[in-house]
């Protein structure tokens, strides 16, 4: 595409993962006063 550069593939590709819950709890990392999950890694993709 001439006018567009996509930075990623759509995230819905990981929809089939049914929330195994093995990932880190978001508040345990560095925040403790806000909530950020977008930077977390899926445990299954490690």
């Amino acid at each position, binding site marked *: *595409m*001439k*006018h*567009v*550069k*996509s*930075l*990623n*593939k*759509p*995230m*819905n590709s*990981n*929809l089939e*993962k*049914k*929330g195994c*819950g*093995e*990932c*880190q*709890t*978001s*508040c*345990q*990392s*560095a*925040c*403790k*006063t*806000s*909530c*950020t*999950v*977008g*930077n*977390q*890694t*899926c*445990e299954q*993709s490690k």
Partner: protein
Amino acid sequence: MIHQYRNNGYNIVMDVYSGAVHVVDDVCYDVIAEVNRAEEEPTAESLKTPEVKAGLLAKLGGRYEAADIEDALSDVIELTEGNQLFMKDIYEGMVEVVKERKTVVKALCMHIAHDCNLACRYCFAEEGEYHGRRAMMSYEVGKKALDFLIANSGSRRNLEVDFFGGEPLMNWQVVKDLVAYGREQEKKFNKHFRFTVTTNGVLLNDEIQDFINKEMDNVVLSLDGRKEINDKMRPFRNGKGSYDLIVPKFQKLADSRNQERYYIRGTFTRNNLDFSNDILHYADLGFKQMSIEPVVGEETDPYAIREEDLPQIFEEYDKLAKVMIEREKEGKGFNFFHFMIDLEGGPCIYKRLSGCGSGTEYLSVTPWGDLYPCHQFVGQDEFLMGNVDEGITKPEIADEFRSCSVYSKDKCRNCFAKFYCSGGCMANAYNFHGTIHDAYDIGCEMQRKRVECAIMMKAALAEQ
């Protein structure tokens, strides 16, 4: 749902429900904005109608060549057909699944010491006392807490335990004993403990450092940046600043961990709205993993962030993002927690919908064994959920937290950042609005700005 914005010379288009992010040129940016003005969100079919093309030529023809407009439109159609633009919301129906899901406890915030050797002015723990009395967690209570975690963790293998306070190093022997106990238990029950500790560094020494490096998956080191900023907000009880004592210890610890698996973490207030200088100060001190959080305080606190501060805060985030791009290009990059974003993988949609897990997967334990939804609710009687002897005695509290998702909050419904923050901090929502099913508005504004900056940085660094 589309969100488009310009930042640092980049035209960025986010497609909220697919998670796709595009950098586009000016004509395409304007074409997307125009077709998105329609009452109903466009589909690939509607975009192919002659009326759409004619409308775009009439509207944008003065600014761009007709061929460019038509070309950009065909790119937009291609993205839409590929579910990378104007994707429909396929997640709302999953709300019930999220609400009804079975949860297990997988993380504990252990209030190992409700006491502190600093007297930070903004401390939500009120100098470690959490609206209550000073106390240290005993080994017996700690053991019961770990037993409770194992017993309530179902088939979950990875369990997280954060030693928190107050200041956990004031009760260090108990921390060491609990880690030893946890290591014994994990073998018996096929679990794996990920221990972490959050410390102000005052009591840090070589022995403690060695233990942390051997046993702790992550360590959070509290420092507010520049000396004058830190010492104003993080003094000892006698008023003396803490910077000179703790900075060399933190530098040594970070180096001893190869600059990995730690965060130097600060709080900014309206006393240092130029907080990008504090983050750069961390970098100048040699730290590579850092975080600065906006203060959480009452609206009446003189240091609390106000709505009128937002323009300056946004400028600071913009400034920081630009400097980080430059430093990265120079090979002197560092990580800022709130600009870290995983556009490729990241957490699954269940996590994105349901958030931090407080009250369900994540609980806090007080020194005397009481259980609360998270550290920020400790001391508030209406959130006392149970204790380590009896377990959860008020499951209705867990049910309420479980029912909380980005779709249970009206403010999240039309927010482009909802799948990055997952509805925000429930304690903040409660503190400002009296319900966890709301959102802390100033926090949301800052969160959206950080997501925009983080994505702009991805765009800039993708060019390399």
